[in-house]
Protein backbone atom coordinates (compact mmCIF):
# COMPACT_ATOMS: atom_id res chain seq x y z
CA UNK A 1 0.00 0.00 0.00
CA UNK A 2 1.28 3.44 -0.92
CA UNK A 3 1.70 5.87 1.98
CA UNK A 4 1.58 9.64 1.59
CA UNK A 5 2.44 12.38 4.03
CA UNK A 6 0.41 15.12 2.33
CA UNK A 7 -1.73 13.31 -0.26
CA UNK A 8 -3.89 16.34 -1.07
CA UNK A 9 -0.89 18.17 -2.54
CA UNK A 10 1.29 15.20 -3.53
CA UNK A 11 -1.48 13.81 -5.72
CA UNK A 12 -3.08 17.11 -6.81
CA UNK A 13 -3.85 17.61 -10.51
CA UNK A 14 -1.03 19.33 -12.37
CA UNK A 15 -3.15 22.42 -13.16
CA UNK A 16 -3.68 22.93 -9.44
CA UNK A 17 0.03 22.58 -8.70
CA UNK A 18 0.79 25.07 -11.45
CA UNK A 19 -1.68 27.53 -9.99
CA UNK A 20 -0.05 27.21 -6.57
CA UNK A 21 3.38 27.66 -8.14
CA UNK A 22 2.30 30.82 -9.96
CA UNK A 23 0.81 32.40 -6.84
CA UNK A 24 3.88 31.61 -4.77
CA UNK A 25 6.30 32.71 -7.48
CA UNK A 26 4.72 36.16 -7.83
CA UNK A 27 4.94 36.62 -4.07
CA UNK A 28 8.48 35.28 -3.85
CA UNK A 29 9.85 37.53 -6.60
CA UNK A 30 8.40 40.54 -4.81
CA UNK A 31 9.93 39.36 -1.51
CA UNK A 32 13.36 39.02 -3.08
CA UNK A 33 13.10 42.33 -4.96
CA UNK A 34 12.29 44.07 -1.71
CA UNK A 35 14.85 42.34 0.51
CA UNK A 36 17.83 41.12 -1.51
CA UNK A 37 19.65 44.03 -3.17
CA UNK A 38 22.07 41.65 -4.89
CA UNK A 39 19.30 39.88 -6.78
CA UNK A 40 17.35 43.07 -7.36
CA UNK A 41 20.40 44.45 -9.15
CA UNK A 42 20.55 41.33 -11.32
CA UNK A 43 16.89 41.81 -12.22
CA UNK A 44 17.44 45.47 -13.01
CA UNK A 45 20.37 44.60 -15.26
CA UNK A 46 18.07 42.26 -17.15
CA UNK A 47 15.31 44.88 -17.22
CA UNK A 48 12.85 42.79 -15.25
CA UNK A 49 10.66 44.01 -12.38
CA UNK A 50 8.24 42.02 -10.19
CA UNK A 51 5.39 43.37 -12.35
CA UNK A 52 6.68 41.30 -15.28
CA UNK A 53 6.20 38.08 -13.33
CA UNK A 54 2.55 37.09 -13.39
CA UNK A 55 2.81 33.30 -13.51
CA UNK A 56 5.19 30.38 -13.95
CA UNK A 57 5.17 31.17 -17.69
CA UNK A 58 7.24 34.27 -16.92
CA UNK A 59 9.88 32.38 -14.92
CA UNK A 60 12.33 32.32 -17.86
CA UNK A 61 12.55 36.13 -17.76
CA UNK A 62 14.34 36.04 -14.41
CA UNK A 63 18.13 35.97 -14.05
CA UNK A 64 19.93 32.85 -12.86
CA UNK A 65 21.77 32.36 -9.62
CA UNK A 66 24.78 30.07 -9.47
CA UNK A 67 27.34 28.86 -7.00
CA UNK A 68 29.52 31.81 -8.04
CA UNK A 69 26.82 34.21 -6.77
CA UNK A 70 26.72 32.35 -3.47
CA UNK A 71 30.46 32.67 -3.09
CA UNK A 72 30.36 36.32 -3.96
CA UNK A 73 27.65 37.06 -1.42
CA UNK A 74 29.17 34.89 1.32
CA UNK A 75 28.20 34.77 4.13
CA UNK A 76 24.82 36.55 4.15
CA UNK A 77 24.44 38.67 1.01
CA UNK A 78 21.41 36.67 -0.14
CA UNK A 79 19.65 36.64 3.22
CA UNK A 80 16.11 37.92 2.71
CA UNK A 81 14.83 38.29 6.28
CA UNK A 82 16.11 40.08 9.40
CA UNK A 83 18.61 37.94 11.32
CA UNK A 84 16.17 37.84 14.26
CA UNK A 85 13.84 35.69 12.18
CA UNK A 86 16.54 33.16 11.33
CA UNK A 87 16.55 30.08 13.56
CA UNK A 88 19.28 27.96 12.00
CA UNK A 89 22.00 27.72 9.40
CA UNK A 90 23.44 24.77 7.51
CA UNK A 91 26.48 24.72 5.33
CA UNK A 92 27.88 22.73 2.42
CA UNK A 93 30.87 20.49 2.83
CA UNK A 94 32.97 23.06 1.00
CA UNK A 95 34.97 20.50 -0.96
CA UNK A 96 34.96 22.77 -3.98
CA UNK A 97 35.98 26.20 -2.82
CA UNK A 98 34.29 28.32 -0.21
CA UNK A 99 31.48 27.01 1.91
CA UNK A 100 27.91 28.04 1.25
CA UNK A 101 25.90 29.12 4.27
CA UNK A 102 22.14 28.63 4.03
CA UNK A 103 19.66 30.29 6.40
CA UNK A 104 16.33 29.00 7.67
CA UNK A 105 13.35 30.55 9.40
CA UNK A 106 11.10 28.22 11.40
CA UNK A 107 8.77 28.17 8.38
CA UNK A 108 11.68 27.09 6.16
CA UNK A 109 12.61 24.28 8.56
CA UNK A 110 8.98 23.13 8.64
CA UNK A 111 8.59 22.89 4.90
CA UNK A 112 11.96 21.17 4.56
CA UNK A 113 10.98 18.58 7.16
CA UNK A 114 7.64 18.11 5.37
CA UNK A 115 9.57 17.29 2.20
CA UNK A 116 11.66 14.72 4.07
CA UNK A 117 8.53 13.26 5.68
CA UNK A 118 7.07 12.79 2.19
CA UNK A 119 10.25 10.94 1.20
CA UNK A 120 10.12 8.65 4.23
CA UNK A 121 6.48 7.76 3.66
CA UNK A 122 7.12 7.21 -0.05
CA UNK A 123 9.73 4.66 1.03
CA UNK A 124 7.00 2.89 3.00
CA UNK A 125 7.61 4.56 6.35
CA UNK A 126 4.85 5.16 8.91
CA UNK A 127 4.70 5.99 12.60
CA UNK A 128 5.28 2.29 13.27
CA UNK A 129 8.75 2.41 11.76
CA UNK A 130 12.13 2.85 13.38
CA UNK A 131 14.26 5.21 11.34
CA UNK A 132 18.02 5.14 11.82
CA UNK A 133 19.51 8.39 10.59
CA UNK A 134 23.14 7.64 9.77
CA UNK A 135 23.79 10.78 7.78
CA UNK A 136 26.20 13.13 9.52
CA UNK A 137 24.61 15.52 11.98
CA UNK A 138 25.84 19.08 12.21
CA UNK A 139 26.32 21.64 9.47
CA UNK A 140 25.59 18.97 6.84
CA UNK A 141 21.90 18.92 5.97
CA UNK A 142 21.61 15.12 5.69
CA UNK A 143 21.23 14.32 9.38
CA UNK A 144 18.97 17.23 10.33
CA UNK A 145 16.66 16.86 7.32
CA UNK A 146 15.84 13.18 7.67
CA UNK A 147 15.74 13.51 11.45
CA UNK A 148 13.08 16.23 11.20
CA UNK A 149 11.19 14.30 8.54
CA UNK A 150 11.16 11.17 10.64
CA UNK A 151 9.71 13.16 13.58
CA UNK A 152 6.96 14.54 11.37
CA UNK A 153 6.02 11.03 10.27
CA UNK A 154 6.02 10.02 13.91
CA UNK A 155 8.57 7.27 13.46
CA UNK A 156 10.91 6.32 16.26
CA UNK A 157 14.05 8.21 15.29
CA UNK A 158 17.56 7.00 16.07
CA UNK A 159 19.87 10.03 15.72
CA UNK A 160 22.93 7.89 14.94
CA UNK A 161 24.96 10.25 12.77
CA UNK A 162 27.75 8.64 10.74
CA UNK A 163 30.71 6.60 11.92
CA UNK A 164 31.31 3.72 14.31
CA UNK A 165 30.10 1.13 11.85
CA UNK A 166 29.84 -1.84 14.22
CA UNK A 167 27.70 0.19 16.61
CA UNK A 168 25.48 1.20 13.68
CA UNK A 169 24.84 -2.47 12.95
CA UNK A 170 24.28 -3.26 16.61
CA UNK A 171 21.60 -0.56 16.85
CA UNK A 172 19.91 -1.68 13.64
CA UNK A 173 19.65 -5.19 15.06
CA UNK A 174 18.92 -4.41 18.72
CA UNK A 175 16.39 -1.62 18.12
CA UNK A 176 14.88 -3.29 15.06
CA UNK A 177 15.51 -0.35 12.75
CA UNK A 178 13.35 -0.69 9.65
CA UNK A 179 14.53 2.30 7.61
CA UNK A 180 18.13 3.39 7.18
CA UNK A 181 19.09 6.87 5.97
CA UNK A 182 22.69 7.53 4.88
CA UNK A 183 24.86 8.08 1.82
CA UNK A 184 24.83 5.19 -0.67
CA UNK A 185 28.57 4.64 -0.26
CA UNK A 186 28.14 4.29 3.49
CA UNK A 187 25.20 1.95 2.94
CA UNK A 188 27.45 -0.21 0.75
CA UNK A 189 30.07 -0.25 3.48
CA UNK A 190 27.51 -1.13 6.17
CA UNK A 191 26.34 -3.98 3.93
CA UNK A 192 29.89 -5.22 3.47
CA UNK A 193 30.48 -5.14 7.22
CA UNK A 194 27.19 -6.95 7.91
CA UNK A 195 28.31 -9.74 5.59
CA UNK A 196 31.66 -9.96 7.36
CA UNK A 197 29.81 -10.27 10.66
CA UNK A 198 27.88 -13.16 9.18
CA UNK A 199 24.51 -11.42 8.81
CA UNK A 200 22.49 -12.31 5.74
CA UNK A 201 19.57 -10.22 4.42
CA UNK A 202 17.13 -12.15 6.64
CA UNK A 203 19.07 -11.37 9.81
CA UNK A 204 18.64 -7.63 9.32
CA UNK A 205 15.33 -5.99 10.29
CA UNK A 206 15.71 -3.17 7.73
CA UNK A 207 13.08 -3.02 4.99
CA UNK A 208 14.06 0.20 3.25
CA UNK A 209 16.90 2.64 2.84
CA UNK A 210 16.83 6.30 1.83
CA UNK A 211 20.18 7.05 0.28
CA UNK A 212 21.37 10.32 -1.21
CA UNK A 213 23.82 13.21 -1.15
CA UNK A 214 25.99 11.63 -3.83
CA UNK A 215 25.59 10.13 -7.27
CA UNK A 216 25.10 6.36 -7.36
CA UNK A 217 24.31 3.91 -10.09
CA UNK A 218 21.40 1.53 -10.60
CA UNK A 219 23.86 -1.36 -10.26
CA UNK A 220 24.89 -0.08 -6.84
CA UNK A 221 21.23 0.03 -5.84
CA UNK A 222 20.78 -3.61 -6.86
CA UNK A 223 23.86 -4.63 -4.92
CA UNK A 224 22.79 -2.81 -1.71
CA UNK A 225 19.24 -4.16 -1.98
CA UNK A 226 20.55 -7.70 -2.27
CA UNK A 227 23.04 -7.50 0.57
CA UNK A 228 20.64 -6.00 3.10
CA UNK A 229 17.37 -7.40 1.79
CA UNK A 230 15.81 -3.94 1.49
CA UNK A 231 14.33 -1.58 -1.06
CA UNK A 232 16.78 1.28 -1.63
CA UNK A 233 15.31 4.69 -2.45
CA UNK A 234 17.11 7.67 -3.89
CA UNK A 235 16.64 11.12 -2.39
CA UNK A 236 17.85 14.39 -3.86
CA UNK A 237 18.55 17.84 -2.53
CA UNK A 238 20.97 20.68 -2.13
CA UNK A 239 21.84 22.76 0.90
CA UNK A 240 21.16 25.87 -1.19
CA UNK A 241 17.54 24.77 -1.58
CA UNK A 242 17.11 23.43 2.00
CA UNK A 243 18.74 19.99 1.92
CA UNK A 244 17.60 16.44 1.13
CA UNK A 245 13.98 16.07 0.12
CA UNK A 246 13.82 18.42 -2.86
CA UNK A 247 12.97 15.24 -4.74
CA UNK A 248 12.53 11.62 -3.70
CA UNK A 249 11.73 8.20 -5.08
CA UNK A 250 8.44 6.37 -4.60
CA UNK A 251 7.69 2.65 -4.74
CA UNK A 252 8.16 2.74 -8.53
CA UNK A 253 11.88 3.46 -7.98
CA UNK A 254 11.90 5.12 -11.36
CA UNK A 255 12.82 8.77 -11.08
CA UNK A 256 12.40 11.13 -8.15
CA UNK A 257 9.25 13.19 -7.61
CA UNK A 258 10.18 16.84 -7.23
CA UNK A 259 8.22 18.60 -4.46
CA UNK A 260 6.78 21.00 -7.00
CA UNK A 261 4.63 22.95 -4.58
CA UNK A 262 7.90 24.22 -3.06
CA UNK A 263 10.42 23.94 -5.89
CA UNK A 264 9.82 24.80 -9.54
CA UNK A 265 12.11 22.80 -11.81
CA UNK A 266 13.40 23.77 -15.24
CA UNK A 267 15.84 22.08 -17.59
CA UNK A 268 18.12 24.42 -19.48
CA UNK A 269 20.86 24.15 -22.05
CA UNK A 270 23.96 24.59 -19.84
CA UNK A 271 25.74 26.47 -22.64
CA UNK A 272 23.08 28.97 -23.71
CA UNK A 273 20.82 29.10 -20.64
CA UNK A 274 17.77 28.50 -22.86
CA UNK A 275 14.92 26.50 -21.33
CA UNK A 276 14.68 23.11 -23.04
CA UNK A 277 11.44 21.34 -23.95
CA UNK A 278 10.15 18.77 -21.49
CA UNK A 279 11.89 15.41 -21.68
CA UNK A 280 15.19 16.75 -22.95
CA UNK A 281 18.40 16.32 -21.04
CA UNK A 282 20.07 19.40 -19.64
CA UNK A 283 21.00 21.26 -16.50
CA UNK A 284 18.49 21.26 -13.69
CA UNK A 285 17.46 24.68 -12.40
CA UNK A 286 15.33 25.26 -9.30
CA UNK A 287 13.28 28.13 -7.94
CA UNK A 288 12.39 27.79 -4.28
CA UNK A 289 9.04 29.56 -4.05
CA UNK A 290 8.30 28.96 -0.39
CA UNK A 291 11.53 29.72 1.40
CA UNK A 292 11.69 32.93 3.39
CA UNK A 293 15.27 33.29 4.60
CA UNK A 294 17.24 32.04 1.62
CA UNK A 295 14.97 32.17 -1.41
CA UNK A 296 16.86 30.82 -4.39
CA UNK A 297 15.51 31.95 -7.74
CA UNK A 298 16.51 30.01 -10.86
CA UNK A 299 19.40 28.37 -9.07
CA UNK A 300 21.63 26.41 -11.43
CA UNK A 301 22.37 23.04 -9.82
CA UNK A 302 24.93 21.88 -12.42
CA UNK A 303 23.16 18.52 -12.25
CA UNK A 304 22.55 17.02 -15.65
CA UNK A 305 19.30 15.08 -15.98
CA UNK A 306 15.86 15.02 -17.59
CA UNK A 307 12.32 15.47 -16.29
CA UNK A 308 9.29 13.31 -16.98
CA UNK A 309 5.60 14.08 -16.51
CA UNK A 310 4.60 10.55 -17.36
CA UNK A 311 1.88 9.29 -15.03
CA UNK A 312 3.34 7.44 -12.05
CA UNK A 313 1.70 4.31 -10.67
CA UNK A 314 2.24 5.56 -7.08
CA UNK A 315 -0.46 8.19 -7.58
CA UNK A 316 1.82 11.20 -7.11
CA UNK A 317 1.45 13.83 -9.78
CA UNK A 318 4.64 15.78 -9.19
CA UNK A 319 7.16 15.71 -12.01
CA UNK A 320 9.91 13.12 -11.83
CA UNK A 321 13.60 13.79 -12.38
CA UNK A 322 15.89 11.05 -13.62
CA UNK A 323 18.84 10.17 -11.45
CA UNK A 324 21.45 12.79 -12.35
CA UNK A 325 24.57 11.32 -13.89
CA UNK A 326 26.39 13.36 -11.29
CA UNK A 327 26.96 17.04 -10.74
CA UNK A 328 28.69 18.63 -13.63
CA UNK A 329 31.21 19.44 -10.87
CA UNK A 330 31.90 15.70 -10.63
CA UNK A 331 32.26 15.36 -14.36
CA UNK A 332 35.82 14.83 -15.45
CA UNK A 333 37.13 15.95 -18.78
CA UNK A 334 39.78 13.45 -19.74
CA UNK A 335 41.50 13.82 -23.09
CA UNK A 336 38.60 16.06 -24.07
CA UNK A 337 35.97 13.43 -23.26
CA UNK A 338 33.33 13.91 -20.56
CA UNK A 339 33.54 11.15 -17.98
CA UNK A 340 31.14 10.69 -15.07
CA UNK A 341 32.34 8.58 -12.14
CA UNK A 342 28.88 6.95 -12.08
CA UNK A 343 29.56 5.47 -15.54
CA UNK A 344 32.72 3.85 -14.24
CA UNK A 345 30.81 2.53 -11.24
CA UNK A 346 28.25 0.91 -13.54
CA UNK A 347 30.96 -0.95 -15.46
CA UNK A 348 32.70 -2.12 -12.29
CA UNK A 349 29.54 -3.53 -10.72
CA UNK A 350 28.49 -5.15 -13.99
CA UNK A 351 31.86 -6.91 -14.02
CA UNK A 352 31.34 -8.31 -10.54
CA UNK A 353 33.61 -5.95 -8.66
CA UNK A 354 32.51 -4.22 -5.45
CA UNK A 355 31.54 -0.55 -5.23
CA UNK A 356 34.86 0.32 -3.64
CA UNK A 357 36.86 2.13 -6.22
CA UNK A 358 38.92 5.19 -6.84
CA UNK A 359 39.53 7.09 -10.02
CA UNK A 360 42.96 8.63 -10.36
CA UNK A 361 43.47 11.15 -13.13
CA UNK A 362 46.91 12.45 -13.93
CA UNK A 363 48.77 14.10 -16.76
CA UNK A 364 51.89 12.42 -18.06
CA UNK A 365 53.78 14.00 -20.98
CA UNK A 366 50.83 16.28 -21.67
CA UNK A 367 48.43 13.39 -21.96
CA UNK A 368 45.69 12.71 -19.44
CA UNK A 369 45.80 9.30 -17.84
CA UNK A 370 42.88 7.55 -16.21
CA UNK A 371 43.55 4.85 -13.65
CA UNK A 372 40.58 2.99 -12.25
CA UNK A 373 41.61 1.37 -8.99
CA UNK A 374 39.44 -1.42 -7.73
CA UNK A 375 39.80 -3.90 -4.93
CA UNK A 376 40.24 -7.60 -5.63
CA UNK A 377 37.35 -9.72 -4.37
CA UNK A 378 37.22 -13.45 -3.62
CA UNK A 379 34.77 -13.85 -6.52
CA UNK A 380 37.12 -12.25 -9.02
CA UNK A 381 40.23 -14.06 -7.82
CA UNK A 382 41.74 -17.18 -9.32
CA UNK A 383 45.05 -18.96 -8.73
CA UNK A 384 45.66 -18.76 -12.46
CA UNK A 385 47.35 -15.52 -13.53
CA UNK A 386 45.87 -15.78 -17.02
CA UNK A 387 42.32 -15.90 -15.68
CA UNK A 388 42.80 -12.82 -13.53
CA UNK A 389 44.40 -10.98 -16.44
CA UNK A 390 41.50 -11.97 -18.70
CA UNK A 391 39.04 -10.39 -16.28
CA UNK A 392 41.20 -7.30 -16.01
CA UNK A 393 41.30 -7.03 -19.81
CA UNK A 394 37.54 -7.50 -20.06
CA UNK A 395 37.04 -4.71 -17.54
CA UNK A 396 39.35 -2.43 -19.51
CA UNK A 397 37.49 -3.20 -22.72
CA UNK A 398 34.12 -2.49 -21.07
CA UNK A 399 35.40 0.79 -19.67
CA UNK A 400 36.66 1.79 -23.08
CA UNK A 401 33.33 1.08 -24.72
CA UNK A 402 31.40 2.95 -21.99
CA UNK A 403 33.68 5.98 -21.73
CA UNK A 404 35.14 6.17 -25.20
CA UNK A 405 38.66 6.50 -23.85
CA UNK A 406 41.22 4.03 -22.62
CA UNK A 407 41.49 3.46 -18.89
CA UNK A 408 44.06 1.53 -16.93
CA UNK A 409 42.75 -0.87 -14.31
CA UNK A 410 44.73 -1.38 -11.13
CA UNK A 411 43.83 -4.27 -8.88
CA UNK A 412 44.34 -3.43 -5.23
CA UNK A 413 44.33 -5.47 -2.07
CA UNK A 414 40.99 -5.63 -0.21
CA UNK A 415 40.30 -2.77 2.20
CA UNK A 416 43.07 -0.65 0.69
CA UNK A 417 40.61 2.05 -0.38
CA UNK A 418 39.35 4.01 2.61
CA UNK A 419 35.65 3.45 3.36
CA UNK A 420 33.57 6.58 3.59
CA UNK A 421 31.08 7.31 6.33
CA UNK A 422 29.69 10.30 4.50
CA UNK A 423 30.30 11.36 0.95
CA UNK A 424 32.80 9.07 -0.73
CA UNK A 425 35.93 10.53 -2.29
CA UNK A 426 35.96 8.74 -5.64
CA UNK A 427 38.14 10.96 -7.73
CA UNK A 428 41.73 11.99 -7.22
CA UNK A 429 42.73 14.48 -9.88
CA UNK A 430 46.47 15.02 -9.80
CA UNK A 431 46.59 17.12 -12.94
CA UNK A 432 48.15 20.50 -12.54
CA UNK A 433 46.46 22.71 -15.06
Amino acid at each position, binding site marked *: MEHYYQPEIECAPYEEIRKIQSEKLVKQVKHVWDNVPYYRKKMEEKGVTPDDIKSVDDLHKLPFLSKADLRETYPDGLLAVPKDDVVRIHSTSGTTGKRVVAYYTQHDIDLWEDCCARAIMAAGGTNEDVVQVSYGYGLFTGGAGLHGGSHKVGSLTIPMSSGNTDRQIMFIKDLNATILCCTPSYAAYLGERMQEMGYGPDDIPLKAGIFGAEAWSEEMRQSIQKTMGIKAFDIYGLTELSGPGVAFECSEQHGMHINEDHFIAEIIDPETGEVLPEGEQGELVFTAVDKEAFPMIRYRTKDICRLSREKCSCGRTHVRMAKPMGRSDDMLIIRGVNVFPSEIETVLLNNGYAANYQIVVDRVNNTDTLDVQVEMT*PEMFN*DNVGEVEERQKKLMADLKSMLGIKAKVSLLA*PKSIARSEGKAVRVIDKRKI
Partner: protein
Amino acid sequence: MSVQQISVFLENKPGTLKKMTGVLASHGIDLRATSLAETKDFGIARLIVDDALEAVSTLKEHDFVASLTPVLAIEIPDEAGGLDKLLDKFTDESVNIEYMYAFPGGKNTDRACMIFRVADTKAAEARLTGAGVKVLTQEEISNI
Protein backbone atom coordinates in the same frame (compact mmCIF):
# COMPACT_ATOMS: atom_id res chain seq x y z
CA MET B 1 44.47 -37.56 -2.49
CA SER B 2 45.23 -34.09 -3.71
CA VAL B 3 46.89 -31.42 -1.60
CA GLN B 4 45.42 -27.97 -0.89
CA GLN B 5 47.47 -25.09 -2.15
CA ILE B 6 46.77 -21.58 -0.90
CA SER B 7 46.65 -18.92 -3.61
CA VAL B 8 46.96 -15.34 -2.40
CA PHE B 9 46.37 -12.14 -4.35
CA LEU B 10 49.20 -9.65 -3.88
CA GLU B 11 48.95 -6.04 -4.88
CA ASN B 12 51.99 -4.82 -6.76
CA LYS B 13 53.66 -2.59 -4.20
CA PRO B 14 56.56 -2.87 -1.78
CA GLY B 15 55.81 -4.63 1.47
CA THR B 16 52.81 -6.68 0.33
CA LEU B 17 54.62 -10.02 0.37
CA LYS B 18 56.19 -9.20 3.72
CA LYS B 19 52.75 -8.40 5.13
CA MET B 20 51.60 -11.86 4.09
CA THR B 21 54.60 -13.69 5.55
CA GLY B 22 54.22 -11.63 8.71
CA VAL B 23 50.63 -12.77 9.17
CA LEU B 24 51.60 -16.40 8.61
CA ALA B 25 54.60 -16.16 10.95
CA SER B 26 52.61 -14.64 13.78
CA HIS B 27 50.14 -17.52 13.56
CA GLY B 28 52.89 -20.14 13.58
CA ILE B 29 52.14 -21.41 10.10
CA ASP B 30 55.00 -23.35 8.61
CA LEU B 31 55.63 -22.97 4.89
CA ARG B 32 56.48 -26.11 2.94
CA ALA B 33 56.75 -24.58 -0.50
CA THR B 34 56.20 -21.20 -2.10
CA SER B 35 55.99 -19.94 -5.63
CA LEU B 36 55.25 -16.49 -6.91
CA ALA B 37 53.59 -15.72 -10.22
CA GLU B 38 53.80 -12.11 -11.20
CA THR B 39 52.48 -9.82 -13.88
CA LYS B 40 53.17 -6.15 -14.48
CA ASP B 41 50.29 -5.23 -12.22
CA PHE B 42 49.88 -7.84 -9.52
CA GLY B 43 51.18 -11.10 -8.15
CA ILE B 44 49.77 -14.40 -6.97
CA ALA B 45 51.58 -16.27 -4.22
CA ARG B 46 51.08 -20.03 -4.10
CA LEU B 47 51.81 -21.71 -0.83
CA ILE B 48 51.91 -25.20 0.56
CA VAL B 49 51.73 -25.11 4.36
CA ASP B 50 51.35 -27.47 7.29
CA ASP B 51 47.78 -26.35 8.02
CA ALA B 52 46.01 -25.07 4.90
CA LEU B 53 42.60 -24.28 6.43
CA GLU B 54 44.11 -22.34 9.32
CA ALA B 55 46.34 -20.42 6.93
CA VAL B 56 43.56 -19.44 4.54
CA SER B 57 41.19 -18.27 7.29
CA THR B 58 43.99 -16.32 8.98
CA LEU B 59 44.87 -14.58 5.72
CA LYS B 60 41.21 -13.71 5.09
CA GLU B 61 40.91 -12.25 8.57
CA HIS B 62 43.79 -9.98 7.67
CA ASP B 63 42.06 -8.73 4.52
CA PHE B 64 43.87 -10.87 1.98
CA VAL B 65 42.02 -12.47 -0.90
CA ALA B 66 43.08 -16.11 -0.55
CA SER B 67 41.63 -19.33 -1.93
CA LEU B 68 42.29 -23.03 -1.75
CA THR B 69 43.32 -24.77 -4.95
CA PRO B 70 43.73 -28.56 -5.26
CA VAL B 71 47.15 -29.54 -6.59
CA LEU B 72 49.09 -32.78 -6.93
CA ALA B 73 52.19 -33.33 -4.79
CA ILE B 74 54.54 -36.01 -6.03
CA GLU B 75 57.83 -37.10 -4.53
CA ILE B 76 60.77 -37.79 -6.83
CA PRO B 77 64.37 -38.87 -6.20
CA ASP B 78 66.62 -35.79 -6.01
CA GLU B 79 68.91 -36.87 -8.83
CA ALA B 80 69.56 -36.12 -12.49
CA GLY B 81 66.60 -37.23 -14.59
CA GLY B 82 64.24 -37.50 -11.62
CA LEU B 83 61.70 -35.02 -12.95
CA ASP B 84 62.14 -36.16 -16.52
CA LYS B 85 61.17 -39.69 -15.58
CA LEU B 86 58.06 -38.49 -13.81
CA LEU B 87 57.02 -36.30 -16.72
CA ASP B 88 57.15 -39.37 -18.96
CA LYS B 89 54.12 -40.60 -17.04
CA PHE B 90 52.33 -37.26 -17.47
CA THR B 91 52.94 -37.46 -21.20
CA ASP B 92 51.86 -41.09 -21.41
CA GLU B 93 48.65 -40.29 -19.54
CA SER B 94 48.13 -36.99 -21.45
CA VAL B 95 47.94 -34.89 -18.31
CA ASN B 96 48.43 -31.22 -19.11
CA ILE B 97 50.32 -29.11 -16.56
CA GLU B 98 49.22 -25.53 -15.93
CA TYR B 99 52.11 -24.72 -13.64
CA MET B 100 54.52 -26.50 -11.31
CA TYR B 101 57.13 -25.81 -8.70
CA ALA B 102 59.42 -27.84 -6.48
CA PHE B 103 60.63 -28.04 -2.93
CA PRO B 104 63.22 -30.27 -1.21
CA GLY B 105 61.91 -33.34 0.56
CA GLY B 106 62.43 -32.13 4.11
CA LYS B 107 64.33 -34.55 6.35
CA ASN B 108 64.56 -36.90 3.45
CA THR B 109 67.49 -35.14 1.77
CA ASP B 110 67.71 -37.40 -1.25
CA ARG B 111 64.12 -36.70 -2.27
CA ALA B 112 62.41 -33.68 -3.75
CA CYS B 113 58.74 -32.89 -3.98
CA MET B 114 57.01 -31.52 -7.07
CA ILE B 115 53.73 -29.59 -6.99
CA PHE B 116 51.56 -29.73 -10.11
CA ARG B 117 48.50 -27.70 -10.97
CA VAL B 118 46.39 -29.51 -13.58
CA ALA B 119 42.96 -28.76 -15.00
CA ASP B 120 41.16 -31.80 -13.57
CA THR B 121 43.00 -32.83 -10.44
CA LYS B 122 40.86 -35.90 -9.68
CA ALA B 123 41.07 -37.40 -13.15
CA ALA B 124 44.81 -36.72 -13.38
CA GLU B 125 45.40 -38.31 -10.01
CA ALA B 126 43.49 -41.44 -10.97
CA ARG B 127 45.41 -41.80 -14.20
CA LEU B 128 48.83 -41.16 -12.66
CA THR B 129 48.17 -43.48 -9.73
CA GLY B 130 47.11 -46.12 -12.23
CA ALA B 131 50.46 -45.65 -13.95
CA GLY B 132 52.25 -46.34 -10.68
CA VAL B 133 52.96 -42.77 -9.53
CA LYS B 134 52.71 -42.16 -5.78
CA VAL B 135 50.73 -39.01 -5.08
CA LEU B 136 51.26 -37.51 -1.61
CA THR B 137 48.37 -36.78 0.76
CA GLN B 138 47.78 -33.61 2.74
CA GLU B 139 48.85 -35.47 5.85
CA GLU B 140 52.11 -36.60 4.32
CA ILE B 141 52.86 -33.03 3.26
CA SER B 142 52.07 -31.74 6.75
CA ASN B 143 54.49 -34.24 8.24
CA ILE B 144 57.41 -33.44 5.97
